[in-house]
């Protein structure tokens, strides 16, 4: 049954207008040799109540952050999503609209994207933002593509302290872009600026993350300078939630700022959909991939918004486009806009401060309980690496049996860290939660 309900009257009236006697006749253009001659062998149809029952049963088999105390981070975070975000995510005029190619029908989405672009520029200190990329990993590939064409060079340098999935995606895209990827190892949880500088000769782009994958605060201005001195574009991968307390990439010489927007206004949702953001210096605007909304006036002199510089994009430039992107992540980005509007500048500052102080508190309590930090001398933001004395994955299993997920097993991606957990502390955790973490870890690994 689904969502069609063709009445007999409608069917016969329509077939008559077309001049055929059955719907099957319309499919005669499919050659006999490729016709599917049986019923689809798929799970049977369900009514809506049955669909919900099945999905509730499936959802019930997932240990989500409502039922398990979680300190998981590494790119996706359990930050609070205010109820007001639901307003934009559920209005049918946004939810069920297409990309705003017909601007007179879409001023709502277009203006909202313009406001989002402004917010991202403000956060990152850049001149131009696009309307979103797929996620925090693919925008890194987008940035490499920009750099390739802006500099004509064919090498990108990536810090090992950048999120592992971001690095994996860059390496997947690089061959098709004609790019070689060179990695600069992490040293004591951070990236050495001199090492980065040396590796950056002839690089198109140099990618670093702030805070990095270990939660550590890099010397980002020095890393950006190393890139710039080599004639490469400095690409800073940043946490939007940190940008109330950490300096904007544009203020310390980055050419491009990218990141994962999820922590700013989207639910975790097992990894997606979320939104990647990408913002750049004004001279790079014509090389930007993705949608860009511009302001203009209509024939009556009223202010309005349109997709602009569309000649960059696939539907016009085709094989010479700056990207093949069509559908991006607009609705999630609008969720981000509403979130940032709800938080405001002061709220963003407070959010950063709360995360930092609570994470610092967690570090202190764990050290008191006898656990060593993996990088004790490094300043951190909302995540940090702690050594638990034995295989971290086993520790996770045993902690979960006690209702706590203590963090990500860094040994999955980094050498010499098999006994290390990456612990993320957001404003949704409390000092009592931290106590609980310490108690459980002490039980299983103390």
């Amino acid at each position, binding site marked *: 049954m*689904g*969502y069609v*309900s063709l009445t007999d009257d409608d*069917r016969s009236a*329509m077939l008559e207008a*077309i001049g055929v006697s059955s*719907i099957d006749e319309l499919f005669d253009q*499919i050659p006999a040799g*490729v*016709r599917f001659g049986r019923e689809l*062998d798929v799970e049977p149809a369900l009514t809506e109540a049955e669909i919900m029952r099945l999905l509730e*049963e499936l*959802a019930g088999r*997932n240990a989500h952050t409502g039922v398990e105390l979680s300190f*998981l981070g590494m790119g*996706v975070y359990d930050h609070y999503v*205010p109820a007001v975000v639901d307003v934009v995510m559920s209005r049918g005029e*946004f*939810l*069920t609209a297409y990309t705003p190619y*017909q601007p*007179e029908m879409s001023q*709502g989405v277009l203006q*909202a994207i*313009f406001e989002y*672009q*402004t*917010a991202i520029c403000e956060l990152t200190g850049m001149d131009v933002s696009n309307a979103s990329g*797929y*996620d*925090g990993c693919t925008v890194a590939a987008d940035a490499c*593509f920009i750099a390739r064409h802006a500099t004509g060079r064919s090498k990108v340098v990536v810090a090992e302290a950048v999120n592992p*999935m971001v690095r*994996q995606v860059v*390496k*997947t895209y690089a061959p*098709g872009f004609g790019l070689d990827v060179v990695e600069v190892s992490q040293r004591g949880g951070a990236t050495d600026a001199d090492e980065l500088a040396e590796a950056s000769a002839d690089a198109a782009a140099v990618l670093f993350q702030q805070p990095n994958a270990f939660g550590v605060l890099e010397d980002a201005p020095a890393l950006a300078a190393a890139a710039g001195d080599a004639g490469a574009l400095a690409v800073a991968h940043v946490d939007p939630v940190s940008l109330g307390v*950490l300096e904007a990439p544009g203020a310390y010489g980055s050419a491009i700022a990218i990141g994962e927007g999820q922590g700013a206004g989207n639910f975790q*949702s097992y*990894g*997606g*959909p979320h939104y990647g953001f990408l913002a750049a210096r004004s001279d790079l605007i014509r090389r930007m991939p993705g949608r860009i909304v*511009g302001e*203009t*006036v*209509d*024939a009556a002199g*009223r202010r309005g918004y349109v997709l602009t510089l569309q000649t960059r994009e*696939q539907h016009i430039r*085709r094989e010479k486009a700056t990207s*093949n992107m069509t*559908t*991006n992540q*607009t609705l999630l980005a*609008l969720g981000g806009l509403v979130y940032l509007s709800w938080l*405001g500048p002061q*709220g963003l500052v407070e959010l950063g*401060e709360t995360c930092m*102080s609570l994470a610092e*508190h967690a570090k202190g309590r764990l050290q008191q309980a006898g656990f060593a930090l993996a990088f004790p001398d490094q300043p951190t933001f909302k995540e940090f690496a702690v050594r638990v004395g034995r295989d971290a994955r086993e520790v996770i299993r045993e902690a979960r049996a006690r209702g706590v997920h203590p963090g990500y097993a860094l040994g999955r991606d980094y050498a010499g860290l098999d006994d290390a957990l990456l612990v993320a502390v957001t404003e949704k955790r409390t000092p009592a939660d931290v106590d609980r973490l310490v108690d459980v870890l002490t039980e299983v690994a103390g």
Partner: protein
Amino acid sequence: MDLIYEKSSPGRRAGGVPQYDLPRVEVPAALRRAAPPRLPEVTEPELVRHVTALADRNFGIDTGFYPLGSCTMKHNPRVNERAAGLPGFRDLHPLQEDEGAQGALDLMWRLQRYLSEITGLPGVSLQPAAGSQGELTGLMVMRAYFTDRGEGPQRDTIITADTAHGTNPASVTMAGYALEKVATDARGNLDLADLRTKVNERTAGLMLTNPSTLGLFDEGIEEVAEIFHDAGALLYYDGANLNAVVGHSRPGDMGFDIVHINLHKTFSQPHGGGGPGGGPVAVRDTIEPFLPSPQVVRDGNAFRLDHDRPKSIGRVRGFAGPFGVFVRSYAFMRAYGPELREMSDVAVLNANYLLARLRDVFELPYDRHCMHEFVLSARNLKREHGITALDVAKRLMDFGIHPPTVYFPLVVPEALMIEPTETEVKARLDEFVDAMLQISREAAEDPELLRTAPHTRPVTRLDEVRAAKEPVVRYDFAGHTTTQAGTR
């Protein structure tokens, strides 16, 4: 309408953040933010009113008929939203241990099986975030396949149809391939004679959607497949038009080896004003090892993410993919079960009904039954009255109908590409026909009305030249040059 920044007042705020009685941590001075970002400063009521006002200036499928060809603007079922919002899905961290995510992995497994049966291809990856990313993934997988066979450098060219959507050639470039185009014949099928001159040992594959962007099923598809396979090349199916053939013909049976599906077209993921979407890829057995990593696999009654995939092209997106999209698409499929075939039945019926009623009002480039969409040309209106497809599109807005796709595909001048989808009832289709008939009358009797349309939207035609020449892409706090009332 004001921007949210124009509604802001210094010191206003909506939300608060929990603060604990803990020592403050200073960011090292060299890294500290000098001045907070200038985000909006509004109350929650102001914010809600702003979002509501924006929504009132926008048009979605929920508002009215939206026959955008190539986009499959079908109804977005609300149960899907409720399902995706279940805490067990919504609040699940993607790095949760597999044991703690069995419901999510089970759902992905089931979705994979549905897609496999619908496409006729066994290997499925759900990772790509959109159709375009699915295309790029498919091409990268193709390259990995040929490289594994020692034919990588030799096969450097992809062939696309001249009616192809712009993403096809753009994806070809991003994947590092060279592009070759093949012509369309008078029936709307690939020109086989032209094709035979272009397929050779340098050909990696074909990228094609079937039915084509003209809404026509390629009657020679079996021969097309043979030409490519005989040359040792592969066939890639752009799933944008899958809505026409579900349960009627499977891309794998047509001869395609790699397929991407648009979950936001065929399987009802809402378009969201420009995303999110989902672009899963389905492939033959022999190509499965090259799919992105990780893959969802089943061990007895348990599911897990398999990262041990030595021949994989790697990762194209973070985590396992856009999971919220999977929930919605799976819920949609379960509403139909095997009756998904009926979805295509009605999509094709609706399109042919509109074609039958409009074919004498405009020019019809290809005189055949269409599938789920069709293309008309407004060239007759241009010739007789100086009215273009753009004018028709703008005037339709005044009837409360979203325009069809215009000026695509490129092979049809003054093109109007119309795709009603299966979720429209006959009365809506009749309203659309009436509006188009009215517009063609107005073209003769009052063309100026069309040239200055739309008349009933918040704005009329916008100066896109100005937007391109002097791009204003963000609010300028120091002195924004365009106020609500016009240029300052």
